[in-house]
Protein backbone atom coordinates (compact mmCIF):
# COMPACT_ATOMS: atom_id res chain seq x y z
CA UNK A 1 0.00 0.00 0.00
CA UNK A 2 1.29 3.50 -0.83
CA UNK A 3 1.92 5.46 2.30
CA UNK A 4 3.16 8.84 3.37
CA UNK A 5 5.21 9.12 6.50
CA UNK A 6 6.36 12.45 7.90
CA UNK A 7 8.40 13.19 10.98
CA UNK A 8 9.15 16.87 11.18
CA UNK A 9 10.27 19.26 13.89
CA UNK A 10 10.66 22.99 13.41
CA UNK A 11 11.29 24.89 16.63
CA UNK A 12 8.58 23.91 19.11
CA UNK A 13 6.14 22.53 16.53
CA UNK A 14 6.34 18.89 15.60
CA UNK A 15 4.48 16.67 13.15
CA UNK A 16 4.54 12.91 13.29
CA UNK A 17 2.08 11.38 10.87
CA UNK A 18 1.75 8.33 8.73
CA UNK A 19 -1.25 7.64 6.55
CA UNK A 20 -2.11 5.58 3.47
CA UNK A 21 -2.92 6.93 0.02
CA UNK A 22 -5.31 4.11 -0.81
CA UNK A 23 -7.95 6.16 -2.60
CA UNK A 24 -7.46 8.77 -5.31
CA UNK A 25 -8.58 11.56 -2.97
CA UNK A 26 -7.35 11.92 0.59
CA UNK A 27 -8.66 14.77 2.68
CA UNK A 28 -6.68 16.24 5.56
CA UNK A 29 -9.10 17.50 8.14
CA UNK A 30 -8.54 19.20 11.46
CA UNK A 31 -8.69 22.45 13.39
CA UNK A 32 -6.44 25.43 12.75
CA UNK A 33 -2.90 24.71 13.88
CA UNK A 34 -3.28 20.94 13.57
CA UNK A 35 -0.54 20.86 10.93
CA UNK A 36 -2.55 20.39 7.71
CA UNK A 37 -0.81 23.07 5.67
CA UNK A 38 2.57 22.23 7.21
CA UNK A 39 2.20 18.64 6.03
CA UNK A 40 1.60 19.83 2.46
CA UNK A 41 4.58 22.21 2.57
CA UNK A 42 6.88 19.54 3.98
CA UNK A 43 5.73 17.07 1.32
CA UNK A 44 6.26 19.64 -1.43
CA UNK A 45 9.77 20.38 -0.13
CA UNK A 46 9.03 24.04 0.59
CA UNK A 47 9.81 23.77 4.30
CA UNK A 48 13.19 22.71 5.62
CA UNK A 49 12.72 21.13 9.04
CA UNK A 50 15.42 21.16 11.73
CA UNK A 51 14.95 17.42 12.10
CA UNK A 52 12.78 15.22 9.98
CA UNK A 53 12.14 12.40 7.59
CA UNK A 54 9.63 12.20 4.74
CA UNK A 55 8.96 8.96 2.91
CA UNK A 56 6.47 8.70 0.06
CA UNK A 57 5.71 5.45 -1.74
CA UNK A 58 8.96 4.02 -0.36
CA UNK A 59 11.09 6.91 -1.63
CA UNK A 60 12.89 9.03 0.95
CA UNK A 61 12.27 12.66 0.03
CA UNK A 62 13.92 14.09 3.13
CA UNK A 63 16.12 12.72 5.85
CA UNK A 64 18.00 15.31 7.87
CA UNK A 65 20.15 12.64 9.57
CA UNK A 66 21.33 11.20 6.25
CA UNK A 67 21.49 14.63 4.61
CA UNK A 68 18.92 13.68 1.96
CA UNK A 69 16.78 16.41 0.43
CA UNK A 70 15.03 15.92 -2.90
CA UNK A 71 14.38 19.44 -4.25
CA UNK A 72 10.75 20.46 -4.90
CA UNK A 73 11.09 20.32 -8.68
CA UNK A 74 12.26 16.70 -8.62
CA UNK A 75 9.54 15.35 -6.37
CA UNK A 76 6.88 15.32 -9.13
CA UNK A 77 4.45 16.87 -6.69
CA UNK A 78 2.13 19.74 -7.66
CA UNK A 79 0.94 22.28 -5.11
CA UNK A 80 -1.93 24.74 -5.45
CA UNK A 81 -3.06 27.01 -2.64
CA UNK A 82 -5.74 29.66 -2.29
CA UNK A 83 -3.27 32.06 -3.90
CA UNK A 84 -2.85 31.19 -7.62
CA UNK A 85 0.66 32.77 -7.75
CA UNK A 86 0.68 33.14 -11.53
CA UNK A 87 3.80 34.74 -12.96
CA UNK A 88 2.48 38.25 -13.70
CA UNK A 89 4.86 39.06 -16.56
CA UNK A 90 4.04 35.88 -18.51
CA UNK A 91 0.94 35.12 -20.56
CA UNK A 92 -1.40 32.30 -19.55
CA UNK A 93 0.21 30.10 -22.22
CA UNK A 94 3.72 30.86 -20.90
CA UNK A 95 2.60 30.24 -17.33
CA UNK A 96 1.20 26.79 -18.14
CA UNK A 97 4.25 25.95 -20.27
CA UNK A 98 6.71 26.94 -17.51
CA UNK A 99 7.02 23.47 -16.00
CA UNK A 100 7.18 21.51 -19.27
CA UNK A 101 10.12 23.15 -20.92
CA UNK A 102 11.73 19.75 -21.46
CA UNK A 103 9.03 18.88 -24.04
CA UNK A 104 9.42 19.64 -27.75
CA UNK A 105 7.79 22.92 -28.80
CA UNK A 106 4.82 21.24 -30.57
CA UNK A 107 4.29 18.77 -27.71
CA UNK A 108 4.46 21.63 -25.25
CA UNK A 109 1.86 23.65 -27.15
CA UNK A 110 -0.41 20.59 -27.36
CA UNK A 111 -0.08 19.93 -23.62
CA UNK A 112 -0.79 23.58 -22.75
CA UNK A 113 -3.92 23.48 -24.95
CA UNK A 114 -5.01 20.21 -23.39
CA UNK A 115 -4.64 21.50 -19.84
CA UNK A 116 -6.39 24.80 -20.54
CA UNK A 117 -9.23 22.94 -22.26
CA UNK A 118 -9.54 20.65 -19.25
CA UNK A 119 -10.25 23.62 -17.00
CA UNK A 120 -12.32 25.55 -19.56
CA UNK A 121 -9.66 28.25 -19.91
CA UNK A 122 -8.52 27.84 -23.52
CA UNK A 123 -9.90 31.28 -24.44
CA UNK A 124 -7.51 32.89 -21.93
CA UNK A 125 -4.34 31.54 -23.54
CA UNK A 126 -2.85 34.86 -24.72
CA UNK A 127 -4.02 36.93 -21.76
CA UNK A 128 -1.86 38.16 -18.90
CA UNK A 129 -2.85 37.21 -15.31
CA UNK A 130 -3.58 40.86 -14.45
CA UNK A 131 -6.83 40.85 -16.40
CA UNK A 132 -8.21 37.54 -15.11
CA UNK A 133 -10.88 36.95 -12.47
CA UNK A 134 -10.14 34.94 -9.31
CA UNK A 135 -11.76 31.82 -10.74
CA UNK A 136 -9.92 32.15 -14.05
CA UNK A 137 -6.59 32.54 -12.26
CA UNK A 138 -7.23 29.42 -10.21
CA UNK A 139 -8.10 27.45 -13.37
CA UNK A 140 -4.83 28.56 -14.95
CA UNK A 141 -2.90 27.75 -11.74
CA UNK A 142 -4.33 24.21 -11.75
CA UNK A 143 -3.57 23.79 -15.47
CA UNK A 144 0.02 24.95 -14.87
CA UNK A 145 0.51 22.59 -11.92
CA UNK A 146 -0.95 19.60 -13.75
CA UNK A 147 0.86 20.19 -17.06
CA UNK A 148 4.02 18.28 -15.95
CA UNK A 149 1.76 15.34 -14.89
CA UNK A 150 2.68 15.21 -11.17
CA UNK A 151 2.28 11.92 -9.31
CA UNK A 152 0.59 13.73 -6.42
CA UNK A 153 -1.42 16.95 -6.35
CA UNK A 154 -1.48 18.92 -3.10
CA UNK A 155 -4.43 21.27 -2.74
CA UNK A 156 -4.53 23.68 0.20
CA UNK A 157 -8.04 25.16 0.15
CA UNK A 158 -7.67 26.20 -3.49
CA UNK A 159 -11.35 27.01 -3.90
CA UNK A 160 -11.93 28.89 -0.66
CA UNK A 161 -11.94 32.34 -2.28
CA UNK A 162 -14.27 31.37 -5.15
CA UNK A 163 -18.05 31.48 -5.41
CA UNK A 164 -19.94 28.19 -5.15
CA UNK A 165 -20.59 27.81 -8.89
CA UNK A 166 -16.92 28.31 -9.84
CA UNK A 167 -15.72 26.06 -7.01
CA UNK A 168 -18.17 23.30 -7.99
CA UNK A 169 -17.18 23.51 -11.66
CA UNK A 170 -13.43 23.36 -10.93
CA UNK A 171 -13.87 20.51 -8.46
CA UNK A 172 -15.91 18.45 -10.92
CA UNK A 173 -13.18 18.94 -13.56
CA UNK A 174 -10.51 17.91 -11.04
CA UNK A 175 -12.44 14.73 -10.25
CA UNK A 176 -12.12 13.58 -13.86
CA UNK A 177 -8.32 13.49 -13.60
CA UNK A 178 -6.25 10.41 -13.02
CA UNK A 179 -4.01 11.94 -10.36
CA UNK A 180 -3.85 11.33 -6.65
CA UNK A 181 -4.91 14.31 -4.59
CA UNK A 182 -4.14 15.29 -1.02
CA UNK A 183 -6.69 17.93 -0.17
CA UNK A 184 -6.92 20.35 2.71
CA UNK A 185 -10.37 21.84 3.09
CA UNK A 186 -12.66 23.06 5.82
CA UNK A 187 -15.67 22.26 3.68
CA UNK A 188 -16.40 18.54 3.65
CA UNK A 189 -19.54 19.15 1.57
CA UNK A 190 -17.16 19.94 -1.32
CA UNK A 191 -15.90 16.38 -1.50
CA UNK A 192 -18.81 14.49 0.10
CA UNK A 193 -20.05 13.02 -3.18
CA UNK A 194 -16.82 11.38 -4.29
CA UNK A 195 -15.01 8.46 -2.67
CA UNK A 196 -12.26 9.81 -0.47
CA UNK A 197 -10.17 8.90 2.54
CA UNK A 198 -10.12 11.23 5.46
CA UNK A 199 -7.18 11.82 7.76
CA UNK A 200 -8.21 13.53 10.98
CA UNK A 201 -5.42 15.60 12.52
CA UNK A 202 -4.91 17.19 15.89
CA UNK A 203 -1.71 18.80 17.18
CA UNK A 204 0.42 17.37 14.38
CA UNK A 205 -0.78 13.79 15.01
CA UNK A 206 -3.28 11.56 13.17
CA UNK A 207 -6.29 10.79 15.33
CA UNK A 208 -8.27 8.73 12.80
CA UNK A 209 -8.12 7.61 9.17
CA UNK A 210 -10.58 5.85 6.90
CA UNK A 211 -13.24 6.34 4.24
CA UNK A 212 -15.01 9.69 4.47
CA UNK A 213 -18.47 8.43 5.38
CA UNK A 214 -17.16 6.01 7.99
CA UNK A 215 -14.92 8.56 9.71
CA UNK A 216 -17.72 11.07 9.75
CA UNK A 217 -20.19 8.60 11.19
CA UNK A 218 -17.70 7.51 13.87
CA UNK A 219 -16.65 10.90 15.02
CA UNK A 220 -19.35 13.34 14.01
CA UNK A 221 -19.52 15.02 17.40
CA UNK A 222 -15.75 15.31 17.78
CA UNK A 223 -15.44 16.68 14.25
CA UNK A 224 -18.03 19.36 14.88
CA UNK A 225 -16.22 20.24 18.09
CA UNK A 226 -12.89 20.42 16.25
CA UNK A 227 -14.39 22.73 13.68
CA UNK A 228 -15.75 24.95 16.43
CA UNK A 229 -19.47 24.40 15.73
Amino acid sequence: MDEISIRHRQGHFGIEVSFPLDLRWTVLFGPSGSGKSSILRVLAGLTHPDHGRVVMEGQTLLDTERNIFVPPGRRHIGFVTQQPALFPHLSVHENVAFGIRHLRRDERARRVGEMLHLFGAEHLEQRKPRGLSGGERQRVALARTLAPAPRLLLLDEPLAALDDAAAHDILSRLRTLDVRVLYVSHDLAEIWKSPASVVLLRGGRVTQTGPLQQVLADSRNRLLQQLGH
Partner: protein
Amino acid sequence: MDTQALWLTFRLAATTTLVLLALGVPVAYWIAFTRSRLRPLAEAVTTLPILLPPTVLGFYLLVILGTRTAFGRIAAHWLGHPLAFSFSGLVVGSVIYSFPFAVQPLVAGFHSIDPALIEQARLLGAGKFRTLLEILLPLSARSLVAAAVLCFTHTVGEFGVVLTIGGDIPGRTRTLSIAIYDQVQDFTYRQATRTSLLLLGISLAALVLLYARGKPGESAHG
Protein backbone atom coordinates in the same frame (compact mmCIF):
# COMPACT_ATOMS: atom_id res chain seq x y z
CA MET B 1 35.43 71.85 -22.25
CA ASP B 2 37.92 69.04 -21.70
CA THR B 3 36.51 66.56 -24.24
CA GLN B 4 39.22 64.03 -23.42
CA ALA B 5 38.07 64.03 -19.76
CA LEU B 6 34.42 63.88 -20.89
CA TRP B 7 35.04 60.81 -23.05
CA LEU B 8 37.13 59.13 -20.33
CA THR B 9 34.43 59.79 -17.72
CA PHE B 10 31.70 58.22 -19.89
CA ARG B 11 33.91 55.25 -20.72
CA LEU B 12 34.68 54.75 -17.03
CA ALA B 13 31.01 55.12 -15.98
CA ALA B 14 29.75 52.72 -18.68
CA THR B 15 32.40 50.07 -17.94
CA THR B 16 31.86 50.38 -14.18
CA THR B 17 28.08 50.08 -14.58
CA LEU B 18 28.36 46.93 -16.69
CA VAL B 19 30.80 45.30 -14.27
CA LEU B 20 28.65 46.33 -11.30
CA LEU B 21 25.49 44.83 -12.77
CA ALA B 22 27.29 41.58 -13.58
CA LEU B 23 28.67 41.36 -10.02
CA GLY B 24 25.75 43.00 -8.23
CA VAL B 25 23.03 40.62 -9.45
CA PRO B 26 24.51 37.42 -7.94
CA VAL B 27 25.61 39.20 -4.76
CA ALA B 28 22.15 40.78 -4.32
CA TYR B 29 20.52 37.39 -4.98
CA TRP B 30 22.67 35.80 -2.29
CA ILE B 31 21.96 38.56 0.23
CA ALA B 32 18.22 38.49 -0.50
CA PHE B 33 17.73 34.75 -0.19
CA THR B 34 20.53 33.23 1.87
CA ARG B 35 19.91 31.83 5.32
CA SER B 36 23.63 32.00 6.11
CA ARG B 37 24.76 33.66 9.33
CA LEU B 38 27.26 35.60 7.23
CA ARG B 39 24.50 37.66 5.60
CA PRO B 40 24.73 40.66 8.00
CA LEU B 41 28.50 40.76 7.50
CA ALA B 42 28.11 40.61 3.71
CA GLU B 43 25.51 43.40 3.81
CA ALA B 44 27.79 45.51 6.01
CA VAL B 45 30.79 44.99 3.72
CA THR B 46 28.82 45.87 0.59
CA THR B 47 27.41 49.01 2.28
CA LEU B 48 30.73 50.16 3.74
CA PRO B 49 31.82 52.27 0.71
CA ILE B 50 28.86 54.62 1.38
CA LEU B 51 30.15 55.49 4.86
CA LEU B 52 33.89 55.36 4.27
CA PRO B 53 35.58 58.65 3.25
CA PRO B 54 36.52 58.24 -0.45
CA THR B 55 40.14 59.13 0.32
CA VAL B 56 40.37 56.30 2.87
CA LEU B 57 38.96 53.85 0.34
CA GLY B 58 41.25 55.27 -2.35
CA PHE B 59 44.31 54.98 -0.08
CA TYR B 60 43.62 51.31 0.75
CA LEU B 61 43.04 50.57 -2.93
CA LEU B 62 46.22 52.39 -3.90
CA VAL B 63 48.17 50.17 -1.49
CA ILE B 64 46.40 46.97 -2.61
CA LEU B 65 46.65 47.74 -6.33
CA GLY B 66 50.28 48.84 -6.07
CA THR B 67 53.21 46.51 -6.74
CA ARG B 68 53.92 46.06 -3.01
CA THR B 69 51.15 43.46 -2.69
CA ALA B 70 50.89 40.04 -4.33
CA PHE B 71 47.53 41.03 -5.90
CA GLY B 72 49.06 44.20 -7.35
CA ARG B 73 52.05 42.28 -8.76
CA ILE B 74 49.85 39.57 -10.32
CA ALA B 75 47.58 42.23 -11.86
CA ALA B 76 50.60 44.18 -13.15
CA HIS B 77 52.07 41.02 -14.67
CA TRP B 78 48.76 40.10 -16.29
CA LEU B 79 47.96 43.61 -17.60
CA GLY B 80 51.53 44.59 -18.45
CA HIS B 81 51.35 47.70 -16.24
CA PRO B 82 50.52 48.49 -12.58
CA LEU B 83 46.81 48.91 -11.78
CA ALA B 84 47.43 52.11 -9.87
CA PHE B 85 47.39 55.26 -12.05
CA SER B 86 45.72 53.40 -14.93
CA PHE B 87 42.20 53.23 -16.40
CA SER B 88 41.85 49.59 -15.23
CA GLY B 89 42.71 50.72 -11.69
CA LEU B 90 40.03 53.41 -11.92
CA VAL B 91 37.48 50.76 -12.95
CA VAL B 92 38.43 48.55 -9.96
CA GLY B 93 38.17 51.52 -7.59
CA SER B 94 34.89 52.75 -9.08
CA VAL B 95 33.34 49.27 -8.89
CA ILE B 96 34.15 49.01 -5.18
CA TYR B 97 33.10 52.61 -4.48
CA SER B 98 29.71 52.26 -6.20
CA PHE B 99 29.00 48.67 -5.15
CA PRO B 100 26.25 49.63 -2.65
CA PHE B 101 24.42 51.52 -5.39
CA ALA B 102 24.18 48.33 -7.45
CA VAL B 103 23.42 45.89 -4.64
CA GLN B 104 20.93 47.77 -2.50
CA PRO B 105 18.24 48.52 -5.16
CA LEU B 106 18.52 44.94 -6.42
CA VAL B 107 18.13 43.43 -2.93
CA ALA B 108 15.08 45.67 -2.38
CA GLY B 109 13.70 44.57 -5.77
CA PHE B 110 14.17 40.87 -5.03
CA HIS B 111 12.61 41.27 -1.57
CA SER B 112 9.53 42.90 -3.08
CA ILE B 113 8.72 39.80 -5.16
CA ASP B 114 5.99 37.55 -3.75
CA PRO B 115 7.74 34.45 -2.29
CA ALA B 116 4.84 32.31 -3.59
CA LEU B 117 6.03 33.00 -7.16
CA ILE B 118 9.53 31.77 -6.35
CA GLU B 119 8.09 28.67 -4.67
CA GLN B 120 5.94 27.90 -7.72
CA ALA B 121 8.97 28.26 -10.00
CA ARG B 122 10.88 25.78 -7.80
CA LEU B 123 7.92 23.37 -7.72
CA LEU B 124 7.76 23.51 -11.51
CA GLY B 125 11.37 22.41 -11.73
CA ALA B 126 13.20 25.71 -12.23
CA GLY B 127 16.65 25.84 -10.64
CA LYS B 128 18.11 28.94 -9.02
CA PHE B 129 19.60 30.29 -12.25
CA ARG B 130 16.41 29.88 -14.28
CA THR B 131 14.33 31.40 -11.46
CA LEU B 132 16.71 34.37 -11.37
CA LEU B 133 16.70 34.81 -15.13
CA GLU B 134 13.02 34.20 -15.90
CA ILE B 135 11.21 35.32 -12.74
CA LEU B 136 13.31 37.53 -10.47
CA LEU B 137 15.06 39.76 -13.00
CA PRO B 138 12.00 40.50 -15.17
CA LEU B 139 9.95 41.25 -12.05
CA SER B 140 12.62 43.57 -10.67
CA ALA B 141 13.38 45.35 -13.95
CA ARG B 142 12.76 48.75 -12.35
CA SER B 143 15.30 48.00 -9.64
CA LEU B 144 17.78 46.91 -12.30
CA VAL B 145 17.34 50.20 -14.16
CA ALA B 146 17.58 52.12 -10.86
CA ALA B 147 20.83 50.32 -10.02
CA ALA B 148 22.28 51.05 -13.48
CA VAL B 149 21.36 54.75 -13.38
CA LEU B 150 22.69 55.21 -9.84
CA CYS B 151 25.96 53.40 -10.62
CA PHE B 152 26.50 55.43 -13.80
CA THR B 153 25.83 58.83 -12.23
CA HIS B 154 27.72 58.02 -9.03
CA THR B 155 30.78 57.07 -11.11
CA VAL B 156 30.48 60.19 -13.28
CA GLY B 157 30.57 62.34 -10.13
CA GLU B 158 33.25 60.54 -8.09
CA PHE B 159 36.36 62.47 -7.13
CA GLY B 160 38.25 61.29 -4.05
CA VAL B 161 38.75 57.66 -5.02
CA VAL B 162 39.63 58.51 -8.63
CA LEU B 163 42.18 61.14 -7.61
CA THR B 164 43.84 58.90 -4.99
CA ILE B 165 44.09 55.81 -7.20
CA GLY B 166 44.56 57.41 -10.60
CA GLY B 167 46.12 60.78 -9.99
CA ASP B 168 45.58 63.40 -12.67
CA ILE B 169 46.94 62.05 -15.95
CA PRO B 170 45.26 63.64 -19.01
CA GLY B 171 43.68 61.05 -21.30
CA ARG B 172 44.34 58.22 -18.82
CA THR B 173 42.91 59.07 -15.42
CA ARG B 174 41.68 62.67 -15.54
CA THR B 175 37.89 62.54 -15.31
CA LEU B 176 35.47 65.49 -15.45
CA SER B 177 35.39 66.00 -11.69
CA ILE B 178 39.21 66.18 -11.60
CA ALA B 179 39.16 68.51 -14.59
CA ILE B 180 36.88 70.85 -12.59
CA TYR B 181 39.32 70.72 -9.67
CA ASP B 182 42.19 71.62 -12.02
CA GLN B 183 40.17 74.46 -13.59
CA VAL B 184 39.40 75.91 -10.16
CA GLN B 185 43.07 75.64 -9.18
CA ASP B 186 43.95 77.50 -12.39
CA PHE B 187 41.25 80.15 -11.72
CA THR B 188 39.55 79.33 -15.05
CA TYR B 189 36.11 79.65 -13.48
CA ARG B 190 34.27 79.96 -16.77
CA GLN B 191 35.45 76.51 -17.85
CA ALA B 192 34.79 75.11 -14.37
CA THR B 193 31.23 76.46 -14.52
CA ARG B 194 30.59 74.85 -17.92
CA THR B 195 31.95 71.46 -16.79
CA SER B 196 30.06 71.65 -13.50
CA LEU B 197 26.83 72.49 -15.33
CA LEU B 198 27.35 69.45 -17.52
CA LEU B 199 27.74 67.17 -14.47
CA LEU B 200 24.74 68.80 -12.81
CA GLY B 201 22.67 68.23 -15.98
CA ILE B 202 23.72 64.57 -16.23
CA SER B 203 22.83 63.89 -12.58
CA LEU B 204 19.48 65.71 -12.80
CA ALA B 205 18.53 63.98 -16.07
CA ALA B 206 19.40 60.58 -14.60
CA LEU B 207 17.26 61.18 -11.52
CA VAL B 208 14.33 62.47 -13.61
CA LEU B 209 14.61 59.33 -15.75
CA LEU B 210 14.68 57.21 -12.61
CA TYR B 211 11.64 58.79 -10.99
CA ALA B 212 9.70 59.02 -14.26
CA ARG B 213 9.70 55.22 -14.45
CA GLY B 214 7.93 54.91 -11.09
CA LYS B 215 4.25 55.38 -10.48
CA PRO B 216 3.26 58.29 -8.21
CA GLY B 217 3.92 57.43 -4.56
CA GLU B 218 6.30 54.57 -5.33
CA SER B 219 9.98 54.59 -4.47
CA ALA B 220 12.38 54.29 -7.37
CA HIS B 221 14.27 51.67 -5.40
CA GLY B 222 11.29 49.32 -5.04
